[in-house]
Structures are given as structure tokens and as C-alpha cells.
């Protein structure tokens, strides 16, 4: 029995800032102090507060250390683990009350308003040890269903009653998907998991697989039982090596315990799961393209209907759900549909995980009940905008979504409210923007992404998105006309209506929603040749104010292209034809003499 547990975050975020080395050093130091039988070092999944990584929590005290370095480790071991003196300088400042006292993590602003269902085990258990998942009621739902021989119809009914909607973005009721697949007769059916998370900035699926892979495995097995499938596939991108590795370990352990394989819980039900690695094409997150890719063919979408529930993988009835959707299911089965419905809103029960990014203090992963307002997420949980800037808009749903302007910051976040204001839930990327972000530029950024990722099968998407990008390019370089804006809008609607799959149908959304709320910015680019946010490089110039310039030569020495000339103690001048608008001069100037115009 260990008296202390040291939980080190092993998510991708913290691993990229060397949490693996910290963990190694921790184990060495603990062994050197002879504490290895008393203190347990556990690698967990993501805690969510990625901005403060690498993160470490020491229990039973619950001391939350942030931005830990390898060099801090000996101090933590000798002071905290050996002598019980918490290393206060490393504590997350929000948890420090005064000299003597700290408060629990759940009382900090970041965690206080959160409700962790899908992420409940992330940052609590070691994802590579199945026993720890079982300790927190893991596989209890599956075991109860199989040993008490609850009929599949009843399992599906629970799903229907819970009102759980697909967390991949579109929000289709999961129970309906299951009941359609169950109703179609076939000699073989399949259960698939969509872990091909591709939206720029979204990483909730990765974090769930890294922190709690068994919850997905258990849920897929339940789905298999409900629809009568014996084989499951998890389609995950190869860019997620840690998630893939933990999934492999988890599947191996589940097979060893007989929780996957033949005759699970002595019920006569067989189910197994295989992993399929995707090469990273965004379109493979679309359900028909994903299944084509699992079949070993080129990942291209095809026309629906027939829907996967009738003819999916290998032409057999298939259920395909997203990682986060699955992560909710064991809890729903254990606690019941009523419990789930009591969380969130009437039409969108439950919680949603968001990956907070962009201009926000607490970058990271948050899970809130549906219906929480955007203001609460940005200001309370996210800790506001850094550098004294103001909130301008938030982008949800990545390249398929739209933006929510500051005037709508009190909108409750749920599927229907977001669609009503021209955005969408999407997989859960939430990118916060301040007044230095140009909305035309943001639309262009997402269009660049969809142009790259369009599979090329249908013309509206392949050619149309490229034309959209060209028009946006023209506008941001100051050569656009008012007619361009109209053509842009017209083309958007054409692409939406005529594209084959979700990628093309939603690709114009970033343009349409920025046009809806920030048309003035488009017009300023065209008529005044000015970028109101000062972000479009072609439309901004750096100018030195001769009154303020002291001739210190600092800017000239730092300019990477030698565009600044002048002699000591005399005002300097920027040659705009040479200037690449990198902004180095402005950041170096000690007299605020350089302005962006």
C-alpha cells in the first residue's frame, strides 16, 4: 500500500514539455531516497489545464504543481514526499489561499464550473492499468448487462431515453443510430469508433483515448451487444502515437481479462476490437470515407443513402460513433437515462468537452454541462484574454463551424442554439479571438485548410473551395471589389448545396458566419484598403514616428531584412518596399516610436 500517489500528466501536451523525463527522474529520486515502497508514481491522462503543463498532483494532500521542470524533482521528493513540506513556489497560484493554506483544485475557477463525465477518469487513473479503471466501476455496466441478460432492445431504449447526441459535431441521436442498425438483419454487423480527430485545435478525443481508453472499449462492446455485432474497429490517426499505444495496451489487457474475445462474462456473446490507423486525411473523419478507408480503399466519401446503419462497413449494417460519445455510455448504462437527462439542457442532455485555444489564458481541455454560456467558458473557466485585450469572437466547430461575436457571448452552448446563430458544435474546438485577429484572415485560414483537405471527388468542393480562397486572398491583399464579396457569398451557398459530403457542405461556414457578423471588416478591406485588426500584412505598414525616435539604432540592428536606415541619434526610416512586416522593430523599440498603420 502506497502512502502517497504522485500523478504525472502523460497527455500529449505535457509529454511535449518533457513530462516523461520528469517522471523518469521522479522514480530515480524516489528510489534514491528509499521511498519506492511508500510512494507510487502514476502516469495519467490529461488534467485539462494544458497551459500550465507539465502538471503533477501529489495525493493525499492534493498539491497541484504546475510548470514543473526536471530540476524541480529532487526538491519535491526531499521536501514534500519525505518531509511533508509542500513546495509552495511550484503550486498553481489559484490554489494558494495564504502562507499556510491551499484550496482544493475543484474550488479553482478553472475546475469549479466544470463537470467531468467523459473526462471523469482522465488525470485520475493510470490508463495503462486496467485494474484502476475497474476500481472506478469500469466494466460494471457491461458486466451487469451481460450477466443479467438485459435484452438488447432495453439497452437501446436506455440510449434513446438518455437523449445522448453524437459528440462528433452533427448531434444525431445515438440511440436512433443503434436502433436502426439493430433492426437491419445481416449475417455480420460492425461497430466502429471515429477517432480521426482532424479539426485544427481540437484534441478531446485524443485526450480521452490517452487518459481513459477502457471507457471507449467498454462502450463499443455494449454497442456490439445492442446491435448484434461481434467485431469493432477503432479508426485513429497515426499522428496520435501515445493514444494508439495506450489503446493497444488497453485492448490487450481487456482480452487477457476476457472482457474482449469469446464468451464474455460467460454469456455466449463474442466481441473483439481492432485498430485501424489513418494517414491523417481530414475527409476520413466523414463517416462514409472513414469506412471506405477501413476497407483498405482510398478514403473518399460516397453518397448517402444508403446510410451506414443499413450498408456500412463491408456493405454490412454498421454503427459509427465518436470517441467522446462512447466515453459517456458506460456512465449512462450504470446511472440510468434519467440521471443523464438531468444534466445539460432538454434537447442537448449531458456535457460537452471543449478544447480551449487561441487568445485565452487557460488553454486546455474543459468539460461543461450543455447550456453553459460562452461567457462562463471564456471568462470564468478560461480565465479571460491575455494582455488586456478584448474578446472579439469565438470560433466553434473548426473548419466546418462558424464564429460567435462578442454580442452573442451570453448564448448557451448547445447544438440548437449554436446552429441558430450560424455556427455549430463541431467536435469541440473553441478558438478565442481578440481585436488583433482579422476575421477575413481567419476565414482564409480555414479555407486554406479545406482546400488542402478536399478529397477532390466532387467538383463543388474541389474547385469551389479553391475559388473561395482565391477571392479571400484578393480581398486580404487589398485588391478586392464589392462585387467580389457578393460573388463570395453566392459561391458559398452553391458549394453548401451541391457538395457530396459533410466536408464540402460545411466548408463555406467560416466565410458565411464572418460575413454575417463582420461584413464591415470585409468592406473595409475592399473600399478603404485597410485591415481594421491590423493583421493582414499586405494592408499594414510599419512607420517610425520621427518625434519619438531617439536614433538608438536598436530597430535597425534587429531588422532581419535591413529595411531600416538612419544614423545614430537621428530619426530612422523604414523602407516599405523591403519591409516584410514581421513586427520585430516594434517589439524592440523602447520608445514606442513605431506604429502599425
Amino acid at each position, binding site marked *: *500500500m*502506497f*502512502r*502517497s*500517489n504522485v*500523478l504525472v500528466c502523460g497527455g500529449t501536451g505535457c509529454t511535449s514539455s518533457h513530462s516523461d523525463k520528469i517522471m523518469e527522474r521522479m522514480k530515480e529520486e524516489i528510489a534514491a531516497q528509499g521511498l519506492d*515502497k*511508500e510512494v*507510487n508514481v502514476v502516469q495519467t491522462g490529461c488534467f485539462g489545464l494544458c497551459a500550465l503543463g507539465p502538471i503533477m*498532483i501529489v*495525493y*493525499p*494532500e*492534493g498539491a497541484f504543481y504546475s510548470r514543473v521542470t526536471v530540476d524541480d524533482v529532487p526538491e519535491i521528493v526531499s521536501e514534500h514526499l*519525505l*518531509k*511533508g*513540506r509542500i513546495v509552495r513556489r511550484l503550486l498553481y497560484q489559484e490554489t494558494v489561499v495564504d502562507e499556510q493554506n491551499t484550496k*482544493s*483544485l*475543484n474550488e479553482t475557477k478553472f475546475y469549479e464550473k466544470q463537470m467531468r463525465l467523459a473526462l471523469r477518469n482522465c488525470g*485520475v*487513473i493510470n490508463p495503462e492499468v486496467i*485494474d*484502476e479503471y*475497474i*476500481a*472506478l*466501476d*469500469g*466494466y*460494471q455496466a457491461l*458486466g*451487469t448487462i451481460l*450477466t443479467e441478460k438485459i435484452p438488447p432492445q432495453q439497452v437501446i431504449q436506455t440510449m434513446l431515453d438518455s437523449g445522448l447526441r453524437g459528440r462528433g459535431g452533427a448531434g444525431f441521436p445515438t440511440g436512433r443510430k443503434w436502433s436502426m442498425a439493430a433492426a437491419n438483419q445481416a449475417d455480420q454487423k460492425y461497430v466502429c469508433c471515429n477517432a480521426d480527430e482532424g479539426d485544427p485545435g481540437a484534441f478531446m478525443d485524443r485526450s480521452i483515448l490517452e487518459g481513459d481508453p477502457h471507457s471507449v472499449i467498454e462502450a463499443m462492446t455494449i454497442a456490439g451487444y445492442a446491435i448484434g455485432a461481434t467485431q469493432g474497429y477503432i479508426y485513429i490517426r497515426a499522428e496520435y502515437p501515445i493514444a494508439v499505444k495506450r489503446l493497444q495496451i488497453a485492448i490487450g489487457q481487456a482480452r487477457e*481479462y*476476457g*472482457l474482449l474475445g469469446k464468451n*464474455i*462474462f*460467460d454469456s455466449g456473446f463474442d466481441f473483439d476490437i481492432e485498430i485501424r490507423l489513418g494517414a491523417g486525411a481530414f475527409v476520413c473523419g466523414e463517416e462514409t470515407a472513414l469506412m471506405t478507408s477501413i476497407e483498405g480503399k482510398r478514403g473518399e466519401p460516397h453518397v448517402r443513402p444508403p446510410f451506414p446503419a443499413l450498408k456500412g462497413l463491408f456493405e454490412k449494417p454498421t454503427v459509427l460513433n465518436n470517441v467522446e460519445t462512447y466515453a459517456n455510455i458506460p456512465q449512462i448504462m450504470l446511472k440510468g437515462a434519467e440521471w443523464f437527462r438531468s444534466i445539460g439542457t432538454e434537447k442537448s442532455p449531458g456535457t460537452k468537452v471543449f478544447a480551449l485555444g487561441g487568445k485565452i489564458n487557460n488553454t486546455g481541455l474543459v468539460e461543461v454541462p450543455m447550456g453553459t454560456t460562452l461567457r462562463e467558458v471564456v471568462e470564468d473557466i478560461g480565465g479571460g484574454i491575455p494582455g488586456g485585450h478584448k474578446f472579439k469572437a469565438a470560433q466553434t466547430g473548426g473548419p466546418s463551424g462558424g464564429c460567435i461575436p462578442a454580442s452573442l457571448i451570453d448564448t448557451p452552448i448547445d447544438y440548437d442554439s449554436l446552429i441558430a446563430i450560424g455556427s455549430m458544435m463541431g467536435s469541440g474546438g473553441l478558438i478565442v479571438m481578440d481585436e488583433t485577429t482579422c476575421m477575413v484572415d481567419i476565414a482564409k485560414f480555414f479555407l486554406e485548410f479545406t482546400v488542402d483537405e478536399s478529397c477532390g471527388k466532387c467538383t463543388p468542393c474541389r474547385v469551389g473551395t479553391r475559388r473561395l480562397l482565391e477571392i479571400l486572398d484578393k480581398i486580404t491583399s487589398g485588391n478586392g471589389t464589392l462585387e467580389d464579396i457578393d460573388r463570395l457569398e453566392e459561391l458559398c451557398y452553391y458549394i453548401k448545396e451541391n457538395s457530396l459530403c459533410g466536408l464540402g457542405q460545411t466548408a463555406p461556414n467560416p466565410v458565411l458566419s464572418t460575413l454575417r457578423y463582420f461584413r464591415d471588416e470585409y468592406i473595409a478591406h475592399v473600399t478603404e484598403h485597410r485591415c481594421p485588426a491590423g493583421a493582414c500584412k499586405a494592408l499594414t505598414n510599419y512607420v517610425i514616428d520621427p518625434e519619438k525616435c531617439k536614433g538608438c539604432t536598436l530597430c535597425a540592428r534587429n531588422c532581419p531584412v535591413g529595411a531600416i536606415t538612419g544614423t545614430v541619434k537621428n530619426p530612422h526610416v523604414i523602407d516599405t518596399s523591403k519591409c516584410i512586416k514581421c513586427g520585430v522593430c516594434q517589439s524592440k523599440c523602447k520608445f514606442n516610436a513605431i506604429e502599425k498603420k
Partner: protein
Amino acid sequence: MKSLAELKAIRDRAKAAVNVRENSEAGTRVLVGMATCGIAAGARPVLTALVDEVAKRQLPDVMVTQTGCIGICQYEPVVEVVDPDGTKTTYVKMTAEKALRVVNDHLVNHNVVKEYTIGAYQQ
């Protein structure tokens, strides 16, 4: 895995280890003096014994933790038990054997082990 009982056996075995990872603020706190003086006097086996016994008896709202020197180095190893109502009991000159009795009498049955307390020792 053939039955729920099998699953439950694994769960019970693993639960104690995972439960430690929660803040148990409302319950009883057991503080073991682990400054240099405490360690030198043999506080570590006391701490280990306490942790093992608490886990074995599955006392979920008891938190065993270390603390620094409280200034009575001559009485180390010192163990303080803070009950949920805030009452503090100070046990001195502890050993692993005495620790087991504190768990049994004080933590489980809520009877202070008078003869181990600092008050008894000073008389």
C-alpha cells in the same frame, strides 16, 4: 472474466489505491511528523504501518499524511489525529505496533488511546 463477482474482486482490490487520489477534507486527518527529527526517531515505519492498516480496513475518509516538525523533537515519532470536529489528539513516541492500536481504537472505534498521548507521557 466469467462473472460480476470476479469483476468486483478486482475492483475491491484496486479501489484502495485509487481512492487515495481524492481530497478527503471532511474526514479524519492523521499527521505523521516527518521532519529530520521524526525520521531519525523512526517515523517512517510508523507512517507505513498507518497507511497499510487504514487501507486494509478500508477507511475511506481517513487521510494519512506527513507533516513537518512541531517542536517537540524529544517525543518523536509524533502522530497527530485531527477528528472531523477539529479535536486534535497528539500521540508521542510511536511505533508501528502502537500505530495499529491507534487505528483500531481511535480511527475505527473513536476511543482515544490515552496511554499513548502526550498528556499521559508527561505525567
